[in-house]
């Protein structure tokens, strides 16, 4: 099977630090791929390189077998790759709708939209409400309430809903449960499974081994700027994964 998103020989240096050292990466259709690694292993750089947030110094990125060069997150977004950043990338004072459509607002048809550039708020609100409902986030009180009035889990929900609404090919989640309580984490894991069941592959970056082992189909272990190995959660224990991550143990076979 052909990977939907693939990185080959990716290199990224920041001054003297090599964040990515000829790193490979593959995401297959319909799967949840977890990316784990110690702090500073280069997970974030890898994700940023395939999502357009940083431009790799060397190496290629392929989307559905075709080589792509993303120069900005917007670029990747236009190709159907949506990223939910750890910081969620939302404007707290703006409404849920404003945030969902930030950077890709809908304009009214006709004169008002074309010449006076008026936004089609009704259409955007309707769309936002539908998308939140699809993911079971119906308890959001008011689609026009400011994001800062939402709880942490609700914010995460809105961010995931935004990604799911627009990410037609790949969704990348960076530490989606790190800042959440137990119940809210559970809800986000359910969201991930909801999204996968709709056939959209997900890249999940996480430090939380139970979460990773629960939802991931494959686990990409990142160490010292490159992919150490890819394991299936059924074949190894969490302690094995942590041992690989920290270098306490070496995997016997190198994944092809």
């Amino acid at each position: 099977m052909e990977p939907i998103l693939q990185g080959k020989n990716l290199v990224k240096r920041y001054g003297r630090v090599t964040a990515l050292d000829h790193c490979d990466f593959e995401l297959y259709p319909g799967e949840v791929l977890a990316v784990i690694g110690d702090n500073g292993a280069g997970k974030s750089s890898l994700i940023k390189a395939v999502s357009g947030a940083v431009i790799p110094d060397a190496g290629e990125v392929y989307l559905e077998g075709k080589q792509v060069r993303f120069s900005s997150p917007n670029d990747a977004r236009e190709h159907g790759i949506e990223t939910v950043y750890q910081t969620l990338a939302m404007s707290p004072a703006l409404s849920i709708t404003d945030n969902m459509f930030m950077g890709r607002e809908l304009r009214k048809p006709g004169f008002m939209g074309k010449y006076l550039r008026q936004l089609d708020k009704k259409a955007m609100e309707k769309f936002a409400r539908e998308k939140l409902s699809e993911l079971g986030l119906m308890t959001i009180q008011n689609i026009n309430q400011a994001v800062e009035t939402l709880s942490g889990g609700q914010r995460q929900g809105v961010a995931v809903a935004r990604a799911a609404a627009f990410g037609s090919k790949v969704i990348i989640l960076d530490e989606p449960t790190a800042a959440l309580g137990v119940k809210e984490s559970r809800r986000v894991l359910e969201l991930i499974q909801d999204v996968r069941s709709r056939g959209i592959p997900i890249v999940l970056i996480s430090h939380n081994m139970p979460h990773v082992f629960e939802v991931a189909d494959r686990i990409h272990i990142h160490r010292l700027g490159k992919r150490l190995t890819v394991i299936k959660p059924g074949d190894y224990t969490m302690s094995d994964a942590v041992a690989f991550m920290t270098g306490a143990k070496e995997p016997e076979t190198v994944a092809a």
Partner: protein
Amino acid sequence: MSNENYEAASRGGTSDKLAEFQDHSRGFLGNIQHVLHVNPAMVPLIVLVASIVVFGLLLGSKFFSPFALTLILQQVQIVGIVAAAQSLVILTAGIDLSVGAIMVFSSVVMGQFTFRYGLPPAVAVAAGLMVGTACGFVNGWLVAKVKLPPFIVTLGMWQIVLATNFLYSANETIRAQDIAENAPLLQLFGAKVNIGGAVLTVGVIFMVLLVLTLSYVLKQTAWGRHVYAVGDDPEAAELSGVNVKRTLISVYMLAGLICAFAGWALIGRIGSVSPTSGQLANIESITAVVIGGISLFGGRGSIMGTLFGALIVGVFTLGLRLMGADAQWTYLLIGLLIICAVAVDQWIRKVSS
């Protein structure tokens, strides 16, 4: 909303229902906080109406007449226009200390281009507007691309533009009669429209239209939403797909252009072109913005609030003068208002459900 609610609702959730609206009682103070959070221009509007009523009761028809009330509009028109520019910059979590200098320099360019080089007034006005926009562009470029703090950039630009203004104009004033004879276009904003006892000038009408237009643009267009997003959290805005640098540069350029219009209006207001006028415009514009409820931390507030803020200052100034009070009382009260406005802003920012 509590976590229990959230969890419980998500369990039973079916996806055929749309997101629902639930109202929670927040208590009286909480309700006020919520209303203010949604409509940040409410506080200055209430203060404005209250101050008009109080001065109206104290002074009677001396104050509460079409003439006096429109006089306030005439007195605040320059500050109002400049404050509109200042609002845009402050919404992006910046500050523009060079607004007054850009305004004066633009007016000097309009005057000197007409009288020194003999250019048609329309060309001179266009040149003045371009100079203002160019100053704004330099500010915006330094803030967005070189990533210097707006306070420092505009502090420097203030000095640079003001010094350029004095050097270029050789400190010469162009007399009002000369302008009226040779280039009446420069005094266009001073043209008066009488409606009953009310006296409106083109400058006043321009100020009101400007604020209404900006209000529309900020609320109803993508660019306006981006201005708020950039002020709220520039990194989040960038990651959500907003071109932060371009937005910032466009804001400073537009602010420069509006300041140049204020320079044109300044000629209409004082009649002459004077390189020493408008020295207090930057402080007064920041005062109007702050009293108008726009957060200095960016991303919050409405431009209507700025207009109300400018009018509050105007009402206090005229009202106290008509009462025969020492002018220092005005400054004292304005100072109090500024501190109260920021305290209210902090309180509103704490809002959570």
